[in-house]
């Protein structure tokens, strides 16, 4: 597990705070957590979470990118990449 990196990563924490209300089974969230397989969040709810992230960071994350993302870590990395590109 990449615990130290998670603690340092504000994006990771932001995403976790948005996911927590939908985390009905109280799964412990890590970079490896799979949004759909582990958390059973449906595909549309994932898109809605991403919309909040977009507004929070003032970036646009294409649906095409989101559909390739499985884990929280992949989402964090995608946001970092887009933040860099769009800033």
């Amino acid at each position: 597990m990449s615990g130290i990196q998670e603690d340092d990563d504000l994006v990771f924490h932001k995403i976790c705070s948005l996911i927590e209300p939908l985390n009905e089974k109280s799964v412990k969230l890590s970079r490896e957590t799979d949004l759909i397989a582990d958390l059973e969040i449906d595909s549309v709810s994932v898109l809605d979470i991403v919309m909040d992230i977009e507004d929070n960071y003032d970036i646009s994350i294409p649906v095409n990118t989101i559909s390739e993302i499985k884990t929280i870590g992949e989402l964090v990395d995608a946001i970092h990449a887009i933040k860099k590109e769009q800033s």
Partner: protein
Amino acid sequence: MSLFDKFQSTAVQYKALVEGVGRDPFAVSMDEMKGPTRAMVKGKEIVLAGTNNYLGLTFHDDAVAAARKALEQSGTGTTGSRFANGTYAAHRQLEIDLAKFLGYAYCVVFSTGYQANLGAISALVAPPHDVILIDADCHACIYDGCQLSGAETIRFRHNDPESLEKRLSRLSDDVNGKLVCIEGMYSMFGDTAPVKECIEVAHKHGAHVLLDEAHSFGVFGENGRGVCEADGVRDQVDFYTGTFSKSLASIGGFVASNHPELEYLRFSSRPYMFTASPSPANIAAASAALARISTDNTMRERLWENAKRVHAAFTQLGFEICAPAGPVIAVKLADRQAACKAWDFLMEKGVYVNLAIPPGTPNATSILRLSVSAAHTNDDLDAIIGAYTSLSEVLTKEAAQA
């Protein structure tokens, strides 16, 4: 992992939902149709209140006679695509009639509304330099059209022109074409789009607008041309898409536009080129329905009277309704299970509505979606309101016990 593993979790969920009520809301069979608003289901006559048959024309004499005549004169099917042997004179004529009715110069008919959206979006937009912006609540066929195009697709908040503008502003300078996709009336909640504001924002940023009036064609606007007519911006819509499967009481779809480039779809849109065209009877029925809509406003008036009556009754019963009075009246329930139980209760009372649950609904809501028809008689409406009255009594009692 096997090929079929991916179905497992959904299959388990589905089974649990259906077993809870003993009747499958997604596998109802209308054993015999008694008219536009009645059917026999398992030996019992049911009032149909989830059909999208807004103007109630599926059994209209003109439409039935026209379909019968076309069937006899032109056969049961076209056995070919629009691009090959599947364009008959009637297909062309309907394109001309639709363009004229809507006030656009061009119109292309597809085999369904699904394919009209799929075909328009996937042909108009191409990677890597075009971008699509879609309202978050757009219908599956708009999402699928985006996917088929392969172009970058960005969602904006539902009915929020400001959110659209933010996303348009963020686009980089090397973006070429921009297409904004919205709907007139959204099918699940029955809420309408701020079409005028969305078009203003889109055009300000050099984007084209595709407006799907699938549910609002024939229903909104002074002449039934849709929400864009009601908003006074019909002539500013770049691509107007619609379906024959609702107010036009048939099956098929279309895209209309003032852009001459629409004609290019005929040799570049795969959902136009590689599927058989609507059958002669389907085209004839849609043409007859269009003729009716063009000359008779009373159906629309009746639809709105019915919608207002049902909406007022449900409001009084204390239901949480997702939109102001209109042809779709969606009632919010606590969750999937509660909605499924309520759906079954209404069936038991002889009323069919649509059960809609996440992820097929906005904001993960579970709803009973009712669509009003101009063909609903006062008896039909009494039955519908009566069934919902009983439902509200049960729900109130349950809430008191909880």
